């Protein structure tokens, strides 16, 4: 096979992007995808759980729910009915760094949908009755997560590893933090975080001349230009250590490890971390899967993920295995991680990793929802570039550089380790 000398070329580019900024600092970006059956309108805001202050734990996510309970001009439920009657759908998600609200809509109805979306997100009514019913819904969401051992183990790892940093707290908050909230406090949070330069609107779909014009006369123009003075966010550190817990209803044991990695803005370092996690944990021929599942056959599953975050990314390793194999699994993982720091990977292995990472990004550019999300998160955090630009940075990583700069940071000694049985 001629894989050894394969050279990564990028003959295809991602969608063409057009970016602009409104006078009050709102970032705007549109991605042209002529064949898409649906246009995606995606409003992002730097209002994730890490922007909560003491006493606000869970508010970013609760507000995301409350937004859908209506606004000054939209009765509860009117937004959903209007969007869905146009053949569209909507949803939202809250992360550590940001929150976003998106609508998928037939292109010819995008202007109407834009007006509805902005009305809903920028002018929520936060009505007291709806507040108390929706709090019950969030409490059910917390209970639903509590019944999933997978989720519990991961949250425990983040709490142990990230200490007092916001990334260690559950995004959903806790029953007691939610009980203590009221609509006024939520309104203050909304006014503080939903401001011009904190927001980004991304549009992906068939090109439209009308949409940028509609944006220029939309409710986005009314956002305050003043920035919320940023509470100098400290980068997340991971406290190394080893923790053992027992969980009821766990049918297989888990071994998890957590490491810190470069923040999203350091894109070159991030690509290196992505490459390293791919070489270790993605696919049957990756080092961990090959050794633990295929050769020794002592684990059921291995997954290794890089979560891109603004205050320092996080790498997690999760291994699922029978309890009696835990000790040998942990020893083998240590050996594999040390080997990667002691010797460079082969050229062939490196090329395999490069191909997996670069194609992963290309596969992520298929639908308007994926493209708008990528565009918006880049613009929101000050990275104005082609969507495939990070691939050029992949080329800068040699086997020696990975060995000296990345793998030594992914050792058991630096990890927060959690064993659950």
């Amino acid at each position, binding site marked *: 096979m001629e894989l050894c000398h*394969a050279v990564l070329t990028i003959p*295809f580019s991602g969608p063409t992007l057009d970016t602009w900024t409104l006078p009050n600092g709102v970032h705007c970006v549109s991605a042209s995808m*002529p*064949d*898409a059956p*649906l246009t995606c309108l995606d409003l992002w805001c730097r209002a994730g759980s890490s922007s909560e202050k003491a006493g606000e734990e869970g508010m970013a996510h609760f507000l995301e729910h409350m937004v*859908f309970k209506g606004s000054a001009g939209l009765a*509860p*439920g009117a937004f*959903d*009915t209007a*969007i*869905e*009657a*146009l*053949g569209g*759908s*909507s949803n939202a998600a809250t992360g550590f760094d940001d929150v976003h609200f998106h609508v998928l809509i*037939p292109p010819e109805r995008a202007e109407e949908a834009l007006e509805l979306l902005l009305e809903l997100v920028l002018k929520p009514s936060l009505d007291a009755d709806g507040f108390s*019913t*929706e*709090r*019950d*819904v969030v409490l*059910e*969401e917390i*209970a*639903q997560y*509590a*019944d*999933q051992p*997978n989720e519990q183990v991961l949250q425990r790892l983040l709490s142990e590893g990230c200490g007092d940093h916001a990334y260690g707290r559950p995004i959903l908050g806790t029953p007691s933090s939610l009980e203590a909230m009221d609509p006024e406090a939520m309104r203050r949070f909304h006014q503080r975080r939903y401001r011009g330069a904190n927001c980004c609107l991304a549009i992906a779909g068939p090109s439209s001349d009308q949409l940028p014009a509609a944006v220029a006369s939309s409710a986005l123009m009314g956002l305050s230009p003043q920035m919320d003075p940023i509470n100098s966010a400290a980068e997340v550190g991971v406290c190394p250590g080893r923790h053992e817990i027992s969980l*009821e*209803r*766990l*049918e*297989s044991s888990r071994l998890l490890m957590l490491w810190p990695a470069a923040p999203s803005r350091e894109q070159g370092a991030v690509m290196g971390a992505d490459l390293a996690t791919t070489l270790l944990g993605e*696919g*049957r*021929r*990756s080092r961990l899967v090959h050794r633990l*599942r*295929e050769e020794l*056959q002592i684990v*059921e*599953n291995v997954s290794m993920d890089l979560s891109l975050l603004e205050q320092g990314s996080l790498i997690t390793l999760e291994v*699922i295995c029978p309890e009696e194999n835990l000790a040998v699994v942990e020893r083998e993982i240590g050996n594999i991680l040390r080997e990667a720091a002691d010797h460079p990977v082969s050229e*062939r292995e490196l*090329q*395999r990793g490069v*191909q*997996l*990472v670069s*194609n*992963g990004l*290309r596969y992520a*550019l*298929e639908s*308007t929802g994926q493209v708008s999300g990528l565009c918006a998160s880049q613009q929101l955090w000050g990275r104005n570039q082609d969507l*495939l630009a990070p691939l050029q940075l992949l080329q800068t990583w040699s086997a020696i550089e990975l060995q000296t700069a990345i793998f030594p940071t992914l050792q058991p000694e630096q990890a927060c380790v959690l064993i659950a049985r």
Partner: protein
Amino acid sequence: MNVSTTNNPFCSVIPLSTPGIFAAKLLLPFGSALDPVGKRGAHDLLASLLSRGCGTFSNEAMADLVEGCGAGLRCDAHEDALTLSLRCTVDDADRLLPLLNAMVREPHLDQDQVDLERSLSIQAIQRQREDPFHLASLGWRQLAYGSGGYGHDPVGLEEDLQTIDRDDLVALAEQLPTGSCAFAVAGSLPPHFTSDLVAAAGFQDWPSALNQALPPSPGSDGAGITQTIQLQPMDTEQVVLMLGQAAVGHAHPDDLPLRLLQCHLGAGMSSLLFQRLREEHGVAYDVSAHFPALIGAAPFVLSASTASDRAGLTLKLLHEIWMELGTQLLCPEALALAKAKFIGQVAHGLQTCSQRAERSVQLQSMRLPEHHDQICIERLETLTAEDLNAAAQRWLSQPLLSLCGPASTLDTLSRQWQRP
């Protein structure tokens, strides 16, 4: 869409503009519904083995080739079929596409790989017992389909998997190319795909498909069902409730009216379940109306999960919503909204190359025309609230309930369910 008409597999080409990638799907009409008696899980195990060595490639050589191209190649078992899926760049098309043919025609099924995959499946089955939604769903299948083909999860049962050996799998593998198979590619395509896909994929010498009828409906007509409730005690915070009935297959004329009811009940935040359970009463976070496209009588199931102290109210609401389907007419606004959602769902389901190729082979396997979705959209105009009502009376009159949660709550709910 161009169609090249060889006998088997039936091939479709769907050109789309992408960043240089495409998806291919090869559907073989042998799914978990055809698992032999006492061998539940056999088709899923076979599916997992097809990518572990075929033709001139050992397990490791195959993984080296596929992963070295940064591609994705897998085979999954569903109730009605095995589906082989490839996703890769145009540059790698010629190296990777022929693997699909080799996986079907020359799988190795090496003993050591069989042992490994069987062991992984058994461990996965054990781990799924952690998930109350999964347990409620298994209970519902059992209740509705019993020992019928849809009565078990495709991954199978631990005790059955223990008895499946290599010979069982070889026998199943030999059948694979004899069914009416369907193949589709979608995305940025090399020119020779469009001109001669059969040659590009190496499908020239497949046997003619046996002129088989569609498999007999593995569903149930309600006869033989003696129980209407299934309880799965588990020490959880919430109770999972699943209420539903085995309804119709995707090609049945009543599929469309039932699909409109599914849109009405469960599509989006304006749906009835969302509005009544979540917005009016705040009793649940996740609510859904599930109605997959299957060849046989597909499950039509409403589900919700809620805290124990509100489970009685949630069950009452779910049951009321269910009974309204056959007794009350949708108002004109609700009917129009359900139709708009159906049209929206068609567009939502065709956004990626994989989705386009998947829908193409699915329709082909069900002997439905390639423009079936368009035909349904045109048919919407003629459908009335009375039609939906009548379909509900035909198919949704005897719901079955599956519950997973704390034993004491299940007792209470069970008494509530059995009260006349």
